[in-house]
């Protein structure tokens, strides 16, 4: 039970944090002006 919870938390955190890197910026440009 504990293992599953920890695993889920870890996966969800990683997905949540690194998601922006896979998201396309507007017109492909991710740089801030």
């Amino acid at each position, binding site marked *: *039970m504990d293992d599953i919870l*920890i695993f889920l938390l870890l996966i969800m955190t990683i997905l949540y*944090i690194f998601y*922006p890197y896979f*998201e396309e910026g507007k017109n492909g440009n*991710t740089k*801030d002006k």
Partner: protein
Amino acid sequence: MNISLMGQLLEVGSLFLLTYTFFTSLIYLKKKDFQILKSSIRSFKAAFLYSLIAIILLIIALVNSDFSLEYVASYTSRELPLFYKITALWAGQAGSLLFWLFLQLTYSTIFLKKLTDNKRELAPYFLLITSISSIFFNFLILAFTDPFAPLNVSIPDGRGMNPLLQNIGMVFHPPTLYLGYVGFIVPFAYGFSYLLGKEEEANWIKETRKWTMISWIFLTIGIILGMQWAYVELGWGGYWGWDPVENASLIPWLIATAFLHTQILENKKGIFKKWNLIYILFTFILCVFGTFITRSGFIESVHAFTKSRIGYYFLFFMIGYILLAVLILFLNKRKVESSGTLKEFFSKESFLVYVNVVLTGLAAVVLWGTVYPTVSLAFFNKKISIKEAFFNKASIPFAILILVLLGICQIFDYSLKKRSKNIKTTGVLFLLSLFISLIFFKLSGNIKFLLLSLSTTFGALSLLYFFLKETKRQKIKFFTKNKRASGAFLIHMGVIFLLVGIIGSSFFSKKKEFIVKRGETFKMGKYEFKFQNFKMFQSGELDIIQADVKIYKNGKYITTLHPQKQFHRTFQQPISEVAIHMTPSKDIYIIYAPLDIKGKADFQVIFNPLIFWMWLGGIFMVLGGILSLLEKEERGVKGNG
């Protein structure tokens, strides 16, 4: 579920997330890649979520009396009522620090949302500063004082909560104080962001004022509740003992109050920019100093529960932040150059500066009195203890000055055109106050009392004058439209009430001790007390002896009070549960100590005049603060200081 393991993993996880936030914000500042910033913000939010889950887990463990955790076993027991079990979250060092971390992340996340909605370029700086502070607390929790540390032996019941902490005050005093302390992280981190990033000054001062006010309100509630708790629980008839920990909450309060006065000048005239920034940075550093005192045992205090190494880390942390603040301020000093100077020394603007100076002076004296015994021991090898009398004596001139300035600021207008009229009004009100206070002077021949009552009366009359002037000009609109000025008015009324209570109880408190048998009566002033009966009973973990004391005034029955002596099964020291009859003119405060089983008892009766006004003053200050926050539209303060 293994709560200990889960909790520790969450703590380790949030430390990782915060470290990731720190480095990614740094990288963003170099690369300016928005994806990195987005990821950084998300990581910070995840750390907040982790700390929230950790807090929930700890509360579950406390409520379920899960004694597999050392913390739960040390501060609760099975018989402890449910709400005290929950409050055990902040009863010990480990829980308090976790709670601090959680609040810090909560405040920062709320403000971050606002920042990222409008001013994305400030977010990385804000993240940098808040993540450093959060990493520090998270590290302390993991390395020294982990609330999720397991207890390796199995025990039938926990140690229980210190009976002194088992009071309604425990429910509200620590969390409000923490909400006050920690809330200053927002103006603090925003101040740094303002210095380093591109932000409009008007925005900065507006937001900082708002967030400082929020923390100020919580800190005020926390301090007043602490006074109330000490008054009803410690059984010595007082409410403020100038204990280092009390002082440590007063010092940031004074500095934040000083800031709230001079920010008006920046708002209106664009002056005192540097000053304001330094004040707001120091408020948070002084809050950390407060925690340092509570947690280190560095300074002897009734609140300093433990002597641990943790204090030295706090010291490094504070020094680090001070150096960082000085360095960044020095490098960006152009940004906070004032656009003008204060030309008049006899104007409303300059009086606001004097308010700031006096409040800072008082804060400095209190700070010095608090740390001097330690400094003296460390550097001169001399053991000195600074008693209450020093603080009482030293704070009187400051109190007088504060009251006089409070009054003058109500009378003076920002416009110089009316100056001569303002001076005349001041003179008239001063003479009137002198006349009234000379009548009071008959009550006590004390010169300090004369000066204090003179300045209090002057402050009160000036506020009345201000109120009449504003309501005549704006009618009811004063309270509905100009919330900031009317809020300030209520706060200042609160200050007057508070001081009326302090002066009354300090100069006219009377105490008498009586040893009587059951059924006997004793007399103090116009009051007669009858020790009717006593009974013994059990309540939870307590064995209680309770006396019934009937009170008569001039032979007429008023009320019956029930002071108690409580004996806790785990804790040796018995406690006095005092009984208080409160009226606007005086509190009748009874402390009971049974001497034998036949009913012989010792009663201490204290007459504390005007204490009621002190609590009322506290309520006014908080309500005024809330009212002033309700004003949406931004504009300069008209009328009030």
